């Protein structure tokens, strides 16, 4: 169990001190903040937010560079999931309006083509499942082969739940470049979010992926009622896992789910979280994922890209819509942030 900030440091220093510490430790030396330090950052006030975002941006530019990785995602199997993740409209356990549907291979290839046309270099195939069965693995085999034959210039990623070692090996054989499996929440908060599987099961899949040769994408969803202490715990746990990419989702309360009536996260809180995660993960791809349009709006989206974010999901999400991809591409051009080319992500 992780110690709290007070347990690790005895007393809480003035809020501005943590930014000076982060500047020397993270920006100058590339050493991530620990859990207690992340908590101090998350407890800073709005008066320090501009300075915090500027520091997080400097860290991103120094340790990751100016490029932004652009990705598109699609659901190959929507709805009817047996799990009860309380934020998710695709669970079959809630009275959500989302119906089960499968995407066929020609439509999957078309979605990859749509993604490549935006300039994205990553295309992630997602399924709402506990883990893949043989039908889904077969669909993945056929789909990945078809995309690789028809859509040059794009890497294929996958997110199809908890895996066995045999399934990990199969995905490597298919040529999957990166595998996504989110922790979603801190270990201490996870039982409030999911009851049908454990945080440890997710962790174990992430470890198998990390050892497989595929890149590991492991992110989270914030704004689910967790405390700032639990948010700091989550960032530290992600830091321990050392994923190549962390997609950061903000809760978009879905009708019919247990979290359907939760409020949206305050934009200042979301921006502070982005910056804190950057200081906890200085070299990691930190991606805008679901919920940013509602939580941050256009102005906040820009501030986040100047506050630690260095990757975006463009276009639509799995069951909800995103901004027009061209709006994000125009924003990146305006910020003089080049889109990461395929050759540099290999």
């Amino acid at each position, binding site marked *: 169990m992780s110690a709290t900030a007070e347990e690790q440091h005895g007393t809480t220093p003035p809020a501005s001190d943590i930014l000076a510490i982060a500047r020397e430790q993270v920006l100058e030396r590339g050493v991530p903040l620990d859990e207690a330090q992340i908590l101090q950052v998350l407890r800073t006030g709005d008066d320090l937010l501009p300075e915090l975002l500027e520091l997080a941006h400097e860290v991103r530019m120094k340790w990751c560079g100016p490029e932004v990785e652009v990705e598109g995602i*699609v659901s190959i199997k929507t709805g009817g999931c047996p799990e009860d993740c309380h934020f998710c409209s695709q669970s079959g356990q809630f009275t959500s*309006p989302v*119906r089960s549907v499968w995407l066929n291979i020609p439509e999957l290839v078309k979605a990859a083509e749509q993604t490549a046309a935006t300039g994205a270099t990553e295309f992630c195939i997602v399924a709402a499942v506990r883990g893949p069965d043989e039908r889904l693995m077969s669909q993945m085999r056929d789909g990945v082969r078809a995309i690789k034959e028809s859509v040059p210039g794009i890497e294929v990623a996958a997110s199809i739940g908890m895996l066995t070692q045999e399934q990990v090996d199969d995905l490597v054989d298919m040529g999957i470049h990166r595998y996504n499996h989110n922790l979603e929440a801190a270990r201490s908060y996870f039982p409030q979010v999911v009851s049908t599987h454990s945080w440890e099961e997710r962790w174990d899949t992430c470890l198998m992926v990390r050892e497989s040769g595929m890149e590991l994408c492991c992110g989270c969803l914030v704004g689910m009622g967790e405390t700032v202490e639990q948010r700091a715990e989550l960032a530290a746990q992600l830091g321990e896992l050392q994923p190549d990419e962390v997609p950061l989702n903000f809760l978009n309360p879905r009708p019919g789910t247990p979290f359907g009536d939760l409020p949206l996260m305050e934009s200042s809180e979301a921006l502070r979280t982005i910056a804190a995660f950057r200081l906890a993960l200085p070299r990691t791809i930190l991606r805008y994922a679901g919920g940013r349009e509602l939580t941050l709006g256009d102005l906040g989206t820009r501030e986040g890209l100047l506050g630690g974010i260095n990757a975006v999901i463009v276009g639509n999400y*799995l*069951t909800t*819509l995103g901004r027009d991809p061209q709006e994000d591409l125009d924003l990146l051009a305006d910020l003089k942030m080049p889109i990461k080319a395929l050759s540099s992500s290999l």
Partner: protein
Amino acid sequence: MSEAQVYCGHCGEALDASGHDACRERLRMEPPRFCVHCRRRMQVQVTPTSWTARCVEHGELSSP
């Protein structure tokens, strides 16, 4: 002649009831889930730059 829209595509409630302003706002950022003619839940597929929604009785809608 096309059938009249009777139900809200977002929440599935009757359109003659008040309180669908929030639904209309929501439909800017998500596809319809209910058929506006018969209230059936539709099969919806979202892709990176488009969506389709299919009602077994009234056919398919797609993004503009």
